[in-house]
């Protein structure tokens, strides 16, 4: 085993799809937001999509084995674009988040080391300086007595956000 350089450079790409209800058309409108948090004031292309710079921070566990849904918080500064993101997205309720973490080399190029996590929006909170978007993973099936069946909305109803499934 070789001794790897002890330098860590990590960029996170967040792809957030918010939804808002249009009362007049009685339908949902979806809006895509793509941000990265490493390359200052730069638009970076990853997996064919462009990501603008935004100073966000992701906190929380990314996975566990107990079957409960991991919680993730995305912290933004409380500035106009993040507040608009929140208000136009129905308070981050049931938004869809794809968070990809990519390790970089010394030149800032992407390495092959990357992980992608998927989350569903629970809501948000605002303080005087920060805006916190809260998420849970959609489902984590590694638990005792979990039914060996394919889960669909037909046999479970809408997929829950709190790891409690009721077969119907």
């Amino acid at each position, binding site marked *: 085993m070789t001794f790897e350089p002890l330098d*860590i*450079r990590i960029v996170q790409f967040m792809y957030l799809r918010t939804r808002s209800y249009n009362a007049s058309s009685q339908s949902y409108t979806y809006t895509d937001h793509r941000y990265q948090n490493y390359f*200052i004031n730069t638009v970076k292309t990853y997996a064919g999509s462009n990501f603008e710079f935004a100073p966000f921070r992701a906190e929380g566990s990314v996975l566990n084995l107990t079957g409960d849904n991991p919680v993730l918080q995305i912290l933004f500064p409380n500035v106009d674009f993040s507040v608009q993101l929140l208000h136009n997205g129905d308070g981050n309720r049931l938004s869809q988040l794809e968070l990809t973490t990519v390790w970089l080399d010394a030149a800032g190029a992407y390495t092959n080391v990357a992980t992608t996590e998927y989350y569903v929006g629970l809501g948000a909170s605002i303080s005087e300086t920060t805006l916190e978007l809260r998420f849970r993973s959609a489902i984590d099936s590694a638990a005792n007595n979990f039914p060996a069946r394919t889960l669909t909305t037909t046999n479970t109803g809408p997929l829950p956000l709190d790891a409690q499934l009721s077969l119907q």
Partner: protein
Amino acid sequence: MADFPDIAPTNRSYEPGVYPQRSYRTLSGAVVRRSFGNSPFNAKLELEFQNVVDTTVETILNHYRTQTAANSRFRVLTTTKPLAGMTSGLANIASGSIDNLRWEYAQPPQVRSTRSGISTVLVSLLGEIRNPQLDD
């Protein structure tokens, strides 16, 4: 945004910004360094204006008041007197333009009157990361 006034300082000091990095020392003693971004921040520029007339002091103080009241950043242009005497390459670094830094007052200007109508002013500036498209 109003650029810093075109006034020649008597003394000038500059400190480049730091990069957003944090070090963690492992039990073995090896250091792991984590980078959080690719641009420096918190550059420092100190300008001292010795024995200037009151109208010059007023210009500096008015600039401080308008910029700070509006919570607005500004540029120190490479072609103006605060960076006079530098090569263009060095002025690009010291002005923060190469890193898209914008300046703000680290503290209110310090004014010391030396005699009637004549004062010495010390200005301390911080260079911070801003969005160059907004220039706020």
